[in-house]
């Protein structure tokens, strides 16, 4: 088991992949370590949200993902 990081929208291009498995548990510092420098830089911006286990975190720096959970990195949305 591991934590799966999902890269959405433009972050997918920046990461060069749609997802990556990393060992759990995973906190904010660990996340920044595992996503590569370019994505990590984006992640620190307020406009990028983080979801864990299907819930958007109100404070992404409090991330605490357990083995088997999915962490999604959510850039600004655009639909319609």
């Amino acid at each position, binding site marked *: 088991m591991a934590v799966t990081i999902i890269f959405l929208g433009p972050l997918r291009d920046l990461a060069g992949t749609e997802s990556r498995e990393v060992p759990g548990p995973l906190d904010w510092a660990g996340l920044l370590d595992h996503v590569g420098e370019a994505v990590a830089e984006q992640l620190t911006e307020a406009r990028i949200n983080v979801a864990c286990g299907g819930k958007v975190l109100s404070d992404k720096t409090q991330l605490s993902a357990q083995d088997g959970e999915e962490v999604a990195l*959510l850039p600004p949305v*655009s*639909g*319609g």
Partner: protein
Amino acid sequence: MDDIRLVMGSLNTNQVMDQLAMVAPDAGGIASFIGKVRASGVDALELSYYEPLTLPSMQALASDAHVRFDLMGLVMLHRVGELAPGEPIVCVAAAARHRRDAIEAVDFCMDHLKSAAWFWKREKRAGQWHWIEPRAADHADLARWAGKNAPV
């Protein structure tokens, strides 16, 4: 009576309208908005989404719309995947006893789908993909609803 869905294949908007008219026979009016890929200027459009968030966020939006407006039926269909020029991207339709509820519900849902729902959009122009972010106007449109007739 609502029909809230992500659509993988093509989107038949006439069928949607006929269906809504059928399930809401006592509606005095049906308002709709169909967003389309422009026929010229782009080679393709791609909509991506995040399964655990996208449809639940649309369902929450539909619930909000029912709290704010007096509706007899609401349809919200959003394409995902790659779309060709001219294809419909999104179809929102609302049936209501009175016309302003129907029109405002469509306006409300579209403003939220544009810049507050879990979709990411990119366009292919001259062979290159470009990610699209909401325009300033989209954010301003969304802000119109803050605090106004807020759900109780």
